[in-house]
């Protein structure tokens, strides 16, 4: 870690102020990148839609499974912006309502994976020895097996449902976090401030909690934001294969899977849910990429 000379200029200065200054500079760098800002915009928009969208949809009864067989397969129009599907449901309503499931699942997956990965990776990195070997070999093995097939098998085992889907995907997700955290812990463990604290007689718990966790957190947050897009993608993929949520919950992947049978005449039933997945994944990837650029010293050039 290099320290810029001017940091000594306004010494003494509170740690909080220093942290604020660092964030302020990061923000400038972030807002300097047009793509990152667009990504942030998309994500904020999607989160707002996920939280409030359902209250403003034109056909709220369709969210909970209401149907209108006489209005089947209407093309996009002023009354049905995205057209209607094979049950006469308004596709716009379903896509808006589906944002909640997708974002919620995406976040839950990444969060659960981060928690499990951090605990296991932290233990491995901090204690070393055979615990490290055991956990890391398990991680390596998991990384050789395609995550999607693993997630599919687990999801099929647990049966459809939002919670089951989250469990299935996060179980195939944690090894990445475990590796990352272990690496970070290993490097931080040997740094001067930790060695000093240990010499002063700090307990393991205190060392981990006070000195190592805050320093690893940045890397975890970056990975979480980078992974969010892919988590949404994986959840949609499970829905697409047909082992996702329970009907009538609107979910983008399963909407797409059903609509597949109605192409090409009724293309709107497929195209709009697909675009929604793309938008969400794209937005979070832009954001994650931008965050990594400003927060991760290693990625900075």
């Amino acid at each position: 870690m290099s320290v810029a000379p001017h940091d000594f200029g306004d010494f003494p200065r509170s740690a909080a102020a220093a942290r604020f200054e660092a964030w302020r500079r990061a923000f400038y760098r972030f807002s300097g990148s047009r793509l990152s800002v667009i990504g942030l915009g998309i994500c904020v928009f999607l989160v707002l839609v996920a939280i409030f969208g359902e209250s403003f949809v034109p056909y709220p009864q369709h969210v909970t499974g209401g149907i209108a067989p006489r209005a089947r397969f209407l093309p996009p129009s002023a009354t049905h912006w995205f057209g209607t599907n094979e049950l006469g449901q308004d596709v716009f309503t379903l896509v808006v309502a589906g944002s909640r499931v997708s974002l919620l699942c995406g976040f839950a997956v990444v969060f659960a994976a981060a928690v499990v990965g951090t605990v296991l990776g932290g233990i491995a990195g901090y204690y070393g020895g055979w615990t490290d070997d055991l956990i890391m070999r398990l991680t390596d093995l998991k990384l050789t097996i395609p995550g999607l097939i693993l997630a599919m098998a687990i999801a099929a085992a647990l049966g459809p449902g939002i919670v089951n889907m989250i469990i299935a995907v996060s179980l195939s997700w944690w090894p990445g976090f475990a590796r990352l955290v272990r690496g970070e812990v290993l490097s931080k463990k040997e740094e001067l401030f930790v060695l000093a604290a240990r010499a002063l007689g700090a307990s393991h718990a205190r060392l981990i909690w006070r000195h190592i966790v805050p320093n690893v957190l940045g890397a975890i947050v970056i990975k979480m934001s980078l992974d969010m897009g892919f988590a949404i993608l994986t959840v949609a993929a499970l829905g697409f294969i047909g082992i996702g949520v329970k009907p009538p919950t609107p979910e983008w992947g399963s909407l797409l899977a059903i609509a597949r049978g109605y192409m090409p005449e009724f293309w709107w039933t497929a195209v709009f849910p697909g675009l929604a997945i793309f938008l969400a994944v794209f937005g979070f990837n832009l954001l994650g990429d931008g965050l990594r650029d400003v927060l991760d010293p290693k990625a900075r050039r």
Partner: protein
Amino acid sequence: MSVTRRSVIIGAGATAGLLPLSQMTMAQTGGRKILIIASGQDIPNFDPHVATGYSPAWLLRNVYDSLVRTEGNPPKPVPGLASSWSVSPDGMTYTFKLDPKAKFQDGTPVDAAAVKHSFDRIMRLKKGNGWMVNSVIGPDSMKVIDDKTVSIKLTKPFVAFLHVLPWQWVVNPKQVEANKGSDDGQAWLSKNLAGSGPFRVKRAEPGNLYELERVADAWQPGGGNLSGAIWQIVRETIKQRQMIQAGQVHMAADLTSEDMDALKGRPGVNLVIEPEFRTFSIKMNTENGPLADINMRRAISYAFDYQAMLELAGYAQLMVGPLPNGIFGHDPSLAVPRTDLAKAKEFLSKSKSPNGGIKLTMTHVTGLEQQRRWSLVLLDSLKKLNIDLDIKPMVWPDMVALTKTPQTAPDFFPVYQTANYGDPDNIAFAAYHSANNGNWQNMVYKSARVDQLIERGRAELDEAKRAAIYKELQQVIVEDAPDIFGVLEKRKLALRTDIENYRFTPVASNAVELWPLSLKG
């Protein structure tokens, strides 16, 4: 230099990029007449006494022979291995004269002993289509009268007996005995064939295709010009549609109503949209849970949105009562529940949950689009009674496992019931007789009165009396409301116009008999 087939293809390849794909692929069949059928169903087992489902039925019908076949609309028994037969006046003994030309594909003549051998095996295994005959024949039923004459003595009267015989195939005893193993030849017959039919399996690629080729010296009289046929597995109906449109296949077996609409008026495609004895209804758990309450069942029967179901079904008609419309004995004037919310609420108020507020479960087969749609119709209808529906898509075997007891059975269980024979007994017995409790056809419903009427119906020889019995049966079942009587979907097939001699028959029409068919050109 002789012009080989390959060099012709290479020559054609130069211009291949400019030709539409369809013409290219059709050209490659060359002089051989190979009929290609696109279907979503695999053929997992070739054993004629074990396999069920329409895809194995297709293969078995063409590779094996049965005593009688079924043909026409309405379907009638016609000669198969038996060139003629007679029935004793009491309707209990059937005597079959075997065709003297009939021989298995290995050259062995088909004799009475072979027929007995197969029926004995059907009775031993109790699998596949055996359920159709096992309740009416016993160990002493089969009698070899002479080399070419066999008689079957029923243990109970059963007027539709000739209608179930097309699904009881005769295997070559010599081959089966040689490969008997410890499981009565099941492992061997699941992959090998021992038939007398006009076709044999040339190529089997599970999950992809099955190719049949014509037996050079087939004994069957007549026959079209086909040299073979391919059962191509195409899981998406949209792709089946594209292939029939492009002429890559000659027949598409599982099209949706939307596909049929899209194919209308396309050159080279004939559409077959015909009523068939195939019912779809939603069975209710009459023995356990909230639906054991007859008032609740009636409330739901009146709350259900039949019109929505019909609209979503496409080419279909609503069922009138438990039996398929148009079958012998069906009563078109039967009073059945139709959507009437006031009546539904009236019944609900008499039930144990007068204000709804309960949650019921329904399973349906994962990936079956029509069942998914109808589950949502039910969900939407139940909301009006303030009842929640938990929809669980499952694979079929798991669903079947649930039907073993009333306790494991879900509240609603959707069932397609295909008539294997054109007689009311088929559906009445399978779907409402308590002998079938614990099976998917009739998981829990039992009524002594219904059982008795069904048994009288299958034993009665006088047509007028028989019709009266079925009329009463239908009234009793509707009164009990064990099912939401749904729709009869029309059979939807698309055929290329170059198929000749195709005749629709409303039983197992997607398991097409190849022998009479020809391809033009």
